Structures are given as C-alpha cells and as structure tokens.
C-alpha cells in the first residue's frame, strides 16, 4: 500500500487506474539511492514508534496480564488472588450473553467486506464520472468523530422523529424504535459500524484492484470470459491478499466494539442485555464496579479469543489466498 501512496503522489491518476505504474517504475531504483542508509537513521525513524509501542501497548499488556491475577483496590494497591478472577469469569452469566452478542456483531460486520469490494470495483471502472468526488464521499465517515457519527445515527434511527421511519412511512411501512428494540438494536449498530469502516476498506481494495495487471484481464478477454466471469475468476482471486488482510482487521475490530454501543444506546436502554459486548462488560467491571483485576481478566480472555481466531484465519488463508 505504501508503494501506491508514493506512486500516487507523482503518477497521473489515469495511469494508476490502468495499473501500469508498477510496470513503468521499477522498484529496484530505490535500492540504488541512499547515502543516508545507515542504521542510525533507521533507528531514528523507527525509534518514536517503537518507543510508543513499548510504552503504550506492550507494557500495558504485561500489566493487564499480571493484574488479572489480583484483586485491586479502587485507588491502587492489589492482592494476589491466583485464578479467582478467571474462575468467576467463567461462571458469570453475563459472559455468555456478551460472547453471543459480540459474535453476532462480528458476523454482521463482515458483510461490510463484500460491500466494500463491490463499491471499490465500481469506483475502479474507467468510464466513471466524478470518481474523485465519490471516493471522497465514501472516505468522509472514516475521518468523522465517532461521537458525531453516533449522534447523527441516533437521530436517523429515532422511533418518533427519525428520518429512517419517515422514509419507510412513504412506502406505508410502520417503523419502530430501532435502537431500543432488542431484536434490531445490534443490527442497527452493526450497520453504522459497517458504514463507518467502509472508507478504509474501499481504499485498501482499490489499491488491490489497481495492482492487478491489465495483461491478465486482457488474456481473460481473449479467452472469451465475460465481465462477471472475469470478476469472479480473475479479479477476486488476485484480490484475495487484500480480502484476507481486511477480514483479519475487521474481525479484530468487531470483537473490540464498544464505543458505538456505548454512545448509541445510552444508559437506560432496555436493549442493553441484548447488545452488551465483551468490551462493554469489561468497561462495566473496570470503570463502574471498580474491579480492575476482574476487568483485566475479561480483557485477557478477549485477547486470547482474538489470537485464536486470527491464527485460524492465517491457517485457512493457504486454502484461498493467492499471492502472485
């Protein structure tokens, strides 16, 4: 992807779109230049990020792990309790509900991937007018504050005054209070999650699509493949590395969902038991009930779940991901 961004800065877009840039600008030239290519410079560039990673990610992870074996006081101070937090966690009736809700959300959120591929493919067609404008439009949600997104969507979903229900009313459909009905609340939130993440995924898929050499598509043409056949038999397999990347990242993001649920539902929402996710459970334990040790155990369980699912995905990729 970094290649593409670098190329985009210099190459005319029309060239990029045809996917010829990779051929014209050989990557080998990069290695030739570089009197500054000393390890000191490298360390200098990597340094801040590495430091940030250590301080803000690795250290807290270790702390969380150790904390999960303790019972913590509200103002610091902790006592070692062994596996007590984990024993309690696996007996917590709310855990099962939270796991189911999180799984449901993740499954729904994955629907965003085919949608993003379809939109990226449309945006990649050569004849499209105002393509730049579309690309910007799809990317706007990504750079919008989550709080603003939650606020606007709450208004859209509002049972009495919401735009959605007014729209449905035109077709004679009686809408409902989408965010307080336990059967629709999670789906409603997942739709917002998909919408908000669409922009990033489209950019990744566009990059992937532009990396597919025209020669292969032309060869398919000569073999008499129609556009649909070409899309499914050539484009999708060649796009599979991008699809794999997006699905790994999407699953991780979906498993960690909290902000949308928290901001869109509000405290007194009757649908909370049917939308409470794992991170929501973590938030309640750590920041409302002041049980940081227990919260740390929840966080660690989530880490393990994410780890296992990601390893499975990496194992499965051999079956369907094609690298050139």
């Amino acid at each position, binding site marked *: 992807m970094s290649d593409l961004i*670098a*190329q985009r*800065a*210099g190459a005319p877009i029309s060239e990029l779109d045809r996917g010829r840039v990779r051929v014209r*600008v050989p*990557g080998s*030239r*990069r290695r030739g230049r570089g009197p500054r290519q000393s390890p000191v410079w490298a360390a*200098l*560039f990597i*340094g*801040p*990020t590495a430091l*940030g990673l250590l301080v803000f990610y690795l250290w807290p992870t270790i702390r969380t792990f150790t904390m999960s074996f303790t019972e913590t*006081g*509200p*103002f*610091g101070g902790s006592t070692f309790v062994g596996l007590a937090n984990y024993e309690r966690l696996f007996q917590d009736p709310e855990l099962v509900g939270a796991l189911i809700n999180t799984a449901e959300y993740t499954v729904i959120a994955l629907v965003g991937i085919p949608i993003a591929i379809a939109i990226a493919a449309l945006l990649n067609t050569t004849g499209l007018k105002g393509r730049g404008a579309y690309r910007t439009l799809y990317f706007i949600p990504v750079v919008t504050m989550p709080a603003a997104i939650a606020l606007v969507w*709450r208004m859209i*979903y*509002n*049972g*009495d*005054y*919401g735009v959605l229900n007014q729209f449905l009313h035109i077709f004679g459909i009686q809408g409902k*209070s989408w*965010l*307080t*009905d336990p059967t629709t609340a999670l789906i409603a939130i997942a739709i917002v999650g998909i919408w908000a993440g669409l922009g990033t995924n489209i950019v990744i898929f566009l990059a992937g699509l532009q990396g597919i050499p025209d020669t292969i598509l032309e060869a398919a043409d000569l073999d008499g493949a129609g556009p649909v056949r070409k899309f499914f038999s050539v484009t999708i397999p060649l796009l599979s590395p991008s699809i794999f990347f997006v699905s790994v990242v999407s699953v991780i993001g979906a498993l960690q969902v909290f902000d949308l649920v928290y901001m869109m*539902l*509000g*405290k*007194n*929402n*009757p649908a*909370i*038991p049917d939308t409470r996710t794992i991170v929501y459970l973590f938030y*309640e334990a750590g*920041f*409302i*009930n*002041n049980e940081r040790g227990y919260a740390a155990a929840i966080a660690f369980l989530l880490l393990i779940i994410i780890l296992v699912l990601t390893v499975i995905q990496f194992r499965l990729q051999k079956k369907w991901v094609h690298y050139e």
Partner: protein
Amino acid sequence: MRHISPRARVLAAVSTAAAAAFALTACAGGAAGGSSSENVTLSYAIWDQNQQPAMQKIADAFHKEHPDVTVKIQLTPNKEYWTKLQTAVSGGSGPDVFWMNGPHIQLYAANGVLAPLDDQKIPTADYPKSLVDLYTYDGKLYGAPKDFDTIGVWYNKALFDAAGVAYPKAGWTWQDMADTAAKLTDKAKGVYGIAASQYSQENYYDSIPQAGGYVISPDHKKTGYGSPEALKGIEYWIDLIKAGSSPTAQQMTDTAPEDMFLSGKVAMLQTGSWAAIGYAQNADIADKVNVAPLPAGPAGNQSVIHGLANVANAKSPHVAAAKEFAAFASGKQASEIQADTGTVIPAYNGTQDAWVKSMPKYDLHYYIDAVKDAVPYPVSKNTSVWTQDETDILSQVWAGTLAPETGMKQLADKMQAALDAEQKK
C-alpha cells in the same frame, strides 16, 4: 524512488514533534510535583463550566484573605471527571481540593483519600442536615456542603391553557397528577402529560419515599427495594406509562425527556433545581414554564436532596491550606457569591433567598421548601455497583418486558448482595 524523501521528511518532522511533546509533558509533570517555598498554589478540581466564574470569584476571595495561597481551578467535564480523579489519586497526583458528590463520598472517605474537616469549625447546624449526614462517614465530616438540589415539577403553562387544565398547586396528590397528565395528553398531536422516565433522582428516588418506602436504610447496609412500598413507588410511574399519559420507555430512550419538555411534547417534567437557570435563559420556553411542588403519595411529597461538597485531599502536600480552602469555599461568603450567579442553590442556610430571587418569574421557593421533608440521596461505599443493577433491571421493568414485582425482587437481591460484599471488604 524519488517520492520517498518528502515522506521521510514528514516522518522526521512528526517524530521530532512527538519527542518535543514528550519532553514538554515530562517537564510539566516535574514542575507540578515539587513544592515551592512559601507561596502555596492549590489546585481545585471542578466539573461544571457554568459555575467556573463563581468558583474563580471564591478563589479570588480566598486569596485576598490568604495572600500566600493561590487557588488554581482545574475544569474537567463531568463525564471524565471521576475516571480522571480516580487515576490521579491512585498515582498520587490528585488535586488538593475538589468537588465531591453523594455516590462517591463513602468510597473516597473509606479509602483514606480525604482529609477529615472536623477541625475546620464548620458550623454544621447552618447546613441542611441531610447534606451534613451525606458527607459524614464513620462519625467524621469529610465534605463541606457546597450546594444542594431538590426536585420539583416543571409544567408548560401554554399546554395547560390550551387543554383548559388548572396548573398544579401545592398539596396536590398522585391521583391529581394522574388525572392532570391524562387530561393533557393529546395523542393526535403527539403531546403527553408527563415524562415518566426511568430517572432515579428526578423520579423514583422521590416516589419511593412518597409511598412510605426507602431505597437504602439509614445505616447504608440494607436495601429497601424488597418492600411493598418501594414497589408502589415504581408502579406509580409504570402506571402513568400504561395509561398512555407518558411516552414509553423506548420513546424516552430515543428522545431525552427534557428535550420533549422543551419542545412542548410533554407538559410536565420532574427535574431538579439545577434546571431552572437553563429554562430562564432559553428564550423559547422561558415565559411558558413554571415550577410546582411534587405531588403527595400515601406518605407525603418528599423530595430527595442531593448536594455537592468541597473536600480536601489527605495526601496533598499542603493539606492544612487545602482543608481551610475546602471549608471557605462552602462558607457564608462563598455561598453568597454562588447565590448571586443563580447557577445552584448554595448550601449555607440563609443564602438561598438570593437564588430564589435571581429568577423571580418562577416559584423557585418550592425547591427550598422541599428541604424540610427531604430524604437523603441513597448512597453506600460502592454506590455505582448497585446503581448499575438499578439501571439494568429497571430498564426491563420500564420497557414492560419484566413485571414490576419480579423486577423489584431481583433488584432487592442484587443490591443486598452488593451491600453485603461492601461490608466484607
């Protein structure tokens, strides 16, 4: 590739900036930690921007009396206030003096975060007794009451006039409330009589004592949710929804009850004294609304009383000055400063009149009258644990998916379990 160098430059710039920012924060941290020679600077953490001017005036008045002490106000929005405070206190960098509320006082006092104020000669008789009790823990006073709020019924005169219904007046009852609300409801126009929302302080913390029950026993050890009176206090609201005189719980989750009141979709709203100034400054409704006392249930028309207090950090390097300022900021002079701004009702007896007079078009004296029979805000050492249970279970009761009897039984069990767990610690 030639495009790599501009990117590299940007990267370098970003990393330099990050490093600089890092160094800066490190310096700031160091400066705050060290205590200077004679001149003392106290940090004073508050969360309400509307009250900041009044707090600044109080800080200035204190500085006039003690020229060697400067008070610096730290404003943190309420949403982050408690998380930030807890983290800061745990890390040993908490503010010297800060605002405290009922749900948190026992947690902070029990864990040794607060310095007792008993030696500050606070004239406890000059404050509402419920507030002094609220901030007394284990026989020691930990907070100097700063202000208070009680609950009243705000009503939209225009909607009453249009429906030809008499305004609520002192001495009215639950039955009057139900009748009035029913008469004001006009489904065709989407207008409801009252917002019977699942708010604790504004609604069911009041109706439960009005029915003769209680939320928590005076020793903070037993829940009162299992009693038939408490059930009655909850059913009062559920019945208003069932009668159609109030929007449903779902509607009130989608649209905040206060927004419905402000836009004329709800004719009556129970809310605290804190709301008055907002209504007075809202040109759309300022002249359309007024306030009445709460309607009486079987046991009276009690309001719950809550108020903030100024507390001193026991670990402050200037704990003596901190305690002195905490007491001063709740004293007579400070209360007069607060009263003039009209933002809140000051806790010091005798200074409340100025608040009532600051908005003469409303019958604000009802809020002061309510103090006489007011019941203390229910709290315990770990209040947030069982208030979360309240929210979780009552939201199902309000939505109609859980019968009130069953819900209250569940809630009583859960809350009692939480209270028992507190006692063990």
